[in-house]
């Protein structure tokens, strides 16, 4: 994005984009339903305004299967 007033360019994300990662479960790990809490922090801006920074908390559920002998 070109900031005309500063004569600078700033890399930004717009339209659609994605991030991928991985979670490594410890061993051992108790069987049953568990949740992984997370926080998404961002600040959305247009050419005219920047909204206040936001943080959205979320929880991702995962069922840990028991080992069978």
């Amino acid at each position: 994005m070109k900031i005309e007033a500063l004569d600078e360019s700033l890399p930004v994300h717009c339209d659609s984009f994605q991030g991928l990662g991985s979670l490594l479960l410890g061993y051992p790990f108790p069987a049953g339903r568990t949740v992984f809490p997370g926080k998404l922090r961002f600040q959305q801006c247009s050419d005219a305004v920047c909204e206040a920074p936001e943080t959205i908390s979320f929880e991702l559920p995962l069922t840990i299967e028991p080992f069978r002998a």
Partner: protein
Amino acid sequence: MNSCVATGTDGTPKLSNRIVSCKLAPGLQTHGVPHPVNYLVAADGMLVRKYFVPNYQHRVTASSVALREFGAIVEGTAALTLRSGAFAAEIGLSAAKAFAGQQIGFFAKFRLDRGWHVCGAPLPTAYTTRPSRCPRYGL
């Protein structure tokens, strides 16, 4: 990473076609415990990628590989949709179930309305990210 081909007492390969861990001393019964690796092989037989984790107790799940390679998510896996103003995010795991010691995938798909953006790496060296405070507005 310590890996090798384990040999029996007569020196012949014990697991000649597998990668094994030799962190455990020779002579121990557990020396040469098989080391898990996932290979992604194309239809033409070419090896595309390998997924190798350093600890033999860990496993990379197929769902994690499918997410990273093809963007695929296991059917029935719930994803969260978060939205605020012009910004929306869909966040989830590659599978709804897993075993202890497994590595699963995580994804976050973002979407912004036309005319809006969020800053992201790499930022110019002169820029730093810091929390903002606007006490007057309770922020």
